[in-house]
């Protein structure tokens, strides 16, 4: 990808935490870019480092025991070099974030309206009335009926989906250029999930902001993402456009993710849900070389060396971390039912 013009450019980000059991390398050299107005989907299982990497963008991982290195360039400014005070102008203003659990993410003791006006008044000098008006306008924008009354209610008086709408409205208060959505639909009912995703897409189109959508659900990626990062064990293992990831996946972990998707249009022949055997790697003592090696049925003698994130498929911006050749991958990723998947180890 060319230099310049990126809204956000994360370069070689490392985040580790000192714990009693050892150093947890949560994010191990992650780089990516976000372009204005586009949606980057980041997919990976729990512990893949996707949330930590994104919270670090806003400096929300700055506990005493956290070590951060690398560069986080937002419109050219290195956010990683700023302290908490320096970041305040960016947080909730140019970059906003919404989280997984909308109930615990709103303060239970303050009215929804108060929490929103607070976000507005933290940036700029809006009067109470202006802030109130703006909040109600945003509550309407995210589709909350009877917004004037809801403005004066507490979070516990809202349903899960409505709470997430409140979170989104609160994130939009200062017209952010980038919205980081950290599993925004995971805690919601399936029917509500689609509503929230469509809401985020609509708002993105209306307001022209970029979105980072963090999820463990490839279904969400398929719906909203333009570009995709697949993360595993603190590293990016594959990166490309949505179509590249879905139709020409290069990394065995991506195959496993795709193979474990439940598809109602084409049920699996075996009638069983596919899974990736084994456990996610320990982030304290990860395996040498490729982190996916212990779970990969295609492991061979090159795998104990770390594969670089390189274009191996022949497409310039489609990168992966797997030593297999493009031809090998094309053969190996097709499992017995003709679909893409990860071969299950012989029982």
């Amino acid at each position, binding site marked *: 990808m060319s230099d310049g013009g990126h809204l956000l450019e994360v370069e070689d980000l490392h985040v580790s935490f000192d714990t009693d059991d050892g150093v947890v390398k949560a994010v191990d050299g992650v780089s990516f870019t976000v372009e204005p107005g586009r949606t980057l989907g980041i997919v990976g299982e729990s512990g893949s480092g996707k949330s930590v990497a994104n919270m670090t963008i806003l400096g929300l991982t700055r506990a005493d025991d956290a070590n951060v290195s690398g560069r986080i360039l937002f419109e050219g400014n290195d956010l990683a070099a700023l302290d908490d005070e320096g970041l305040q102008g960016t947080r909730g203003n140019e970059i906003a974030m919404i*989280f997984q659990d909308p109930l615990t993410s709103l303060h239970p003791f303050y009215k929804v309206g108060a929490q929103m006006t607070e976000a507005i008044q933290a940036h700029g000098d809006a009067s109470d009335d202006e802030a109130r008006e703006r909040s109600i306008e945003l509550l309407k924008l995210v589709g909350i009926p009877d917004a004037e009354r809801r403005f004066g209610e507490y979070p516990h008086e809202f349903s899960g989906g409505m709470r997430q709408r409140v979170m989104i409205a609160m994130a939009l208060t200062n017209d952010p250029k980038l919205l980081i959505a950290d599993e925004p639909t995971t805690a919601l009912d399936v029917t509500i999930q689609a509503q929230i995703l469509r809401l985020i897409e609509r708002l993105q189109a209306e307001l022209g902001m970029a979105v980072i959508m963090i999820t463990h659900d490839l279904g969400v990626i398929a719906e909203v993402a333009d570009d995709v990062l697949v993360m595993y064990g603190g590293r990016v293992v594959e990166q490309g456009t949505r179509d590249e990831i879905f139709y020409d996946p290069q990394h065995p972990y991506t195959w496993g993710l795709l193979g474990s998707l439940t598809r109602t249009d084409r049920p699996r022949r075996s009638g069983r849900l596919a899974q990736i055997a084994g456990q996610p790697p320990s982030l304290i003592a990860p395996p040498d070389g490729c982190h996916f090696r212990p779970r990969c049925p295609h492991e061979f003698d090159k795998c104990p060396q770390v594969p670089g994130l390189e274009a191996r498929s022949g497409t310039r911006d489609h990168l992966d971390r797997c030593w297999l050749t493009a031809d090998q991958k094309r053969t190996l990723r097709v499992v017995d039912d003709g679909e893409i998947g990860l071969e299950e180890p012989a029982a």
Partner: protein
Amino acid sequence: MLRYIIRRVLWGVALLVIVSAVVFVLFYVIPTADPAKLRAGRTANPQLVEQIRQQLHLDDPIYVQFANYMEGVFLHGDFGESYVSQADVKDTIFERLPATALLVVGSVVLWLLIALPVGIISAVRRRSLMDRTTMVTSLAFISAPVFWLGLVALYLFADDVGLIQIFPGQGAYLTAETFPAKCWAMVLPWVVLAAATAAIYARYLRSSMIDTMAEDYIRTARAKGLPEQKVVMKHALRSAITPIVTLLGLDIGLLLAGNAILTESVFNIPGIGFLIVRSIDRSDLPMIQGVVLFGAFFIVICNLIVDILYAYLDPRVRYQ
């Protein structure tokens, strides 16, 4: 809300009746000295003792005595007279109450002034030198018995026997005439009574704050771009302080009920705690009853206030 309060008040009254019954039964079940004999003096003849017994209605069956007492208390506000001094129980308690109230109020203010900042700062600057120092110190204060702490305070600072003679010592309250003089006499008792409680509250608030700071909504507050000071003092403290309020209500009730007895004894303060110990010594049932009932009353009232306050602090709590 009003219905809730009325129900709670009725329960409180029932509780007071039960408490009185328990004290009555305890007094008769556990053998103590015969109040009539005590009253009659060392060389009294049996007739005099019998006469006093009749006078005090001690010859009535226990349930009749109890019924009479309850009638006096709830219908006439009459708590009876001391077996020993014949002084009116209610008057005596009201005479003693100001000393205890002054002691309690002063030390509550003091311990909150100490505990709140210490608890907040040690939670925010966790594992700092300041945190470790205050937490070790607080452990020392929690472990030190109040009477020992009181004696040490007198030994160090009392203006008669102390090494550094700054503050009024033992018995100063008895001779103090004006309100400022009384407060001045209370300085050491306040500090002694507040020390252990401030330590407990500071530790409690610290752990409550640490839990709260890990909440998702604190992350949201930071992600909104709020200054850290606002995150801590508004978002975190508001949640962390709620359990402290419960604790505070209970502690104030207990102390007013006579739990400041150790401090009162060390400093010779004529308060409620002092009164009840002397009454027990003398088998003075009406006085014991009176003090216990007043104590129970304070505890019931403080609890009620806490519960009502809770509904205002936590909007999720709404009483039916």
